[in-house]
């Protein structure tokens, strides 16, 4: 049997779903859209029933993508997800608005049960609901009072939904609107008139079933006081800055060591495979292709987990909608809305969770623009590149009390933010949409997050990343590895045989480094790096940089490792100084001038600030937009922007 779970956002629907199914759920996607489809399984007397968690909606007449999904299912009895029964979660503390959806669903003619949730909050608001009478006036439907957050009433609910066939309402609440999964009214204005009539009828009904007891120090008044503080012109923004500060401190402090640990683990796994297995193509593939490829996926998990833990807390407490409320005004001129703020800011840590977080933006145009511009925010993977290049070319000077190196770093972050906002502004004119931008948003009461919901949410996000985007990331890393390890014919072997063989034991490490350098230079990637040299020379780069640009397409921080390989420096932590020395001594073959000057160094930093040098981001953009077009456009426009900006930088400074 298929049971659909329907309810308003903030009605506690997710808590009901988690309570009923526990971890026995799987997340997929509704076809064609990126709306999560969660299916859980309920076992009762050895029969398994499917519980489908439909997205939270306010009305059966769709205005958002989420509502569109529910609309498509419920008006089509032949749909694969068309339910046999519907369980509607109704927020008892906000009965009138919740009954709109309930009575619409009830009129569809599918057996329906009402889970009357948050009865404790209703109680604190002084609301007394006569459920007996409510059931009578709604045609005899079943009502189960519950408190999903604590699990109260869940067993009765389970029993009612699965066991007893819930009675269908004896007559529709409002006739002539729905008939057995058919929506009889198509005209928008007529639909609106119907909703108005429904509300008027609900209001009449509520005068019989709902009594307001006087309460001292109403919960609503107390929450309003918090609201006034959190949306204050000064304190509101200060609190938000403080929250951001805590989040970023935590991400940088807590994500680093698990990331280092993952790095070390995969490195030692590679080393172990190389020692334990006989040398050959298979061992190389495993040790240098597959294991690092998997590592490149797993390495993102700490940041994704932490960022989503914070986003979850902000959402669950109700604070997030206040942030949207006070920042919407500043985002609108750029074609974004208040909900774009958190993804954009998260982009400073990592674009991947940031782009995954755009799902809360229900306007597709604004969501797409946010996805397209978020990777311009300087993420943490750019930091090693910036650090190396700043150390290399920026002089250790002070401008007033400020260190020039620090100023350049700050400038790179600012330029990312400005570029993101400008790109949004441009996209605003390009992206077409019939959907009007609106911000009609409920500001829910504040509440404590439920930690078991947190575990389930994080598990979903990590799974989504690892199994969906992970496939693309893994495949591209293998391809890049093949291109960096093999060259046409025996070009690599020939080049390596030119290197003088080591005569003493002490010369072996140097020889090996030289070999990997020469091998990379003669691989397919090396050849491409040479080939693009004419194109990147106007930016102040040589073919060595060309190679690093291509290898670091896998991930920006690979730039440092590739530079080390090309300049035959071991990848030890202590050797950064020597890498800088080597790079400093590098001269242009034609002019004899140093390659890494302030002009070429800044040009390279600008390039990394703008270029889409991250296949993982492209993979997640594909996953979130379901269309190859968007990651492709993103790759082209960001690389183009990077090229032009780097060209201007170099030409102006040299």
């Amino acid at each position: 049997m298929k049971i659909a779970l329907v309810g308003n956002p903030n009605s506690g629907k997710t808590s009901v779903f988690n309570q009923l199914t526990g971890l026995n759920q799987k997340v997929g996607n509704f076809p064609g859209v990126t709306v999560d489809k969660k299916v859980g399984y309920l076992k009762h007397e050895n029969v398994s029933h499917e519980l489908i968690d439909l997205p939270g909606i306010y009305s059966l007449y769709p205005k958002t993508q989420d509502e569109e999904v529910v609309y498509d299912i419920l008006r089509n009895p032949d749909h694969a997800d068309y339910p046999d029964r519907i369980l509607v979660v109704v927020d008892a503390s906000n009965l009138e608005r919740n009954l709109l959806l309930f009575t619409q669903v009830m009129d569809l003619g599918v057996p329906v049960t009402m889970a009357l949730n948050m009865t404790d909050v209703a109680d604190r608001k002084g609301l007394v609901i006569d459920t007996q009478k409510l059931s009578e006036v709604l045609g005899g439907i079943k009502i189960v009072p519950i408190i999903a957050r604590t699990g109260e009433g869940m067993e009765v609910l389970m029993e009612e939904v699965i066991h007893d066939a819930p009675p269908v309402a004896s007559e529709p609440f409002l006739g002539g609107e729905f008939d057995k999964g058919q929506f009889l009214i198509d005209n928008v204005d007529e639909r609106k008139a119907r909703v108005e009539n429904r509300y008027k009828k609900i209001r009449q009904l509520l005068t019989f079933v709902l009594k307001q007891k006087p309460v001292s120090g109403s919960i609503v008044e107390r929450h309003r006081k918090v609201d006034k503080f959190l949306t204050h012109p000064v304190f509101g923004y200060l609190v938000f800055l403080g929250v951001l500060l805590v989040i970023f401190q935590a991400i940088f402090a807590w994500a680093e060591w698990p990331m280092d640990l993952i790095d070390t683990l995969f490195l030692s796994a590679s080393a172990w495979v190389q020692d334990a297995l006989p040398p050959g193509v298979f061992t190389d593939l495993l040790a240098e292709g597959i294991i690092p490829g998997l590592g490149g996926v797993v390495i993102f998990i700490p940041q994704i987990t932490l960022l989503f833990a914070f986003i979850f807390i902000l959402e669950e407490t109700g604070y997030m909608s206040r942030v949207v409320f006070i920042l919407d005004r500043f985002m609108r001129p750029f074609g974004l809305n208040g909900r774009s703020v958190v993804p954009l800011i998260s982009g400073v840590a990592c674009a991947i969770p940031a782009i995954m977080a755009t799902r809360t933006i229900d306007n597709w145009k604004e969501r797409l623009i946010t996805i397209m511009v978020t990777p311009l925010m300087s993420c943490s993977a750019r930091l090693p590149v910036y650090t190396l290049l700043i150390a290399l070319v920026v002089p250790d000077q002070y401008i007033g009390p400020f260190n020039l190196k620090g100023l350049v770093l700050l400038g790179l972050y600012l330029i990312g933010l400005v570029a993101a906002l400008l790109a949004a502004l441009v996209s605003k004119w390009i992206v077409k949409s019939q959907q009007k931008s609106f911000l009609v948003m409920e500001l829910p009461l504040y509440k404590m997050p439920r930690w078991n919901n947190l575990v389930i949410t994080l598990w979903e996000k990590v799974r989504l990343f690892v199994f969906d985007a992970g496939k693309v990331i893994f495949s591209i890393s293998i391809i890049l590895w093949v291109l960096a390890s093999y060259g046409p014919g025996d070009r690599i072997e020939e080049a390596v045989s030119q290197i003088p063989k080591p005569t003493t034991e002490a010369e072996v490490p140097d020889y090996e480094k030289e070999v990997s350098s020469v091998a990379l230079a003669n691989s397919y990637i090396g050849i491409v790096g040479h080939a693009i040299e004419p194109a990147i020379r106007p930016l102040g780069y040589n073919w060595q940089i060309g190679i690093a640009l291509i290898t670091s397409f896998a991930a920006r921080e690979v730039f440092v490792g590739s530079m080390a390989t090309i300049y035959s420096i071991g990848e030890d932590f202590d050797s950064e100084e020597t890498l800088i020395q080597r790079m400093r001594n590098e001269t242009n073959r034609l002019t004899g001038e140093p390659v890494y000057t302030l002009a070429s160094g800044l040009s390279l930093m600008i390039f990394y600030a703008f270029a889409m040098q991250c296949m993982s981001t492209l993979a997640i953009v594909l996953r979130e937009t379901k269309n190859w077009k968007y990651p492709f456009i993103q790759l082209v426009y960001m690389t183009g922007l990077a090229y032009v900006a780097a060209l201007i930088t170099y030409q102006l400074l040299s």
Partner: protein
Amino acid sequence: MITLDSLEINQKVKVKSLVQNGLTSKLVDMGIYPGKDIHVAFRAPFGGPIAVDLDGYTLSLRREEASLVEVEL
């Protein structure tokens, strides 16, 4: 004509009518329909959205959205 965006905070009014517009059907879905008691609870700074109270539930909407709602004292 008095519209929702021009009210003082806590000024208690009733919704009179809504402009016919693709957006207003969203407002009706959210419980802003003719005859409903409504008041502005607080506002976002710098000309941002406003927050209205509908029977103890708080809804935020932009000012131009609020201007589509005609109210009577």
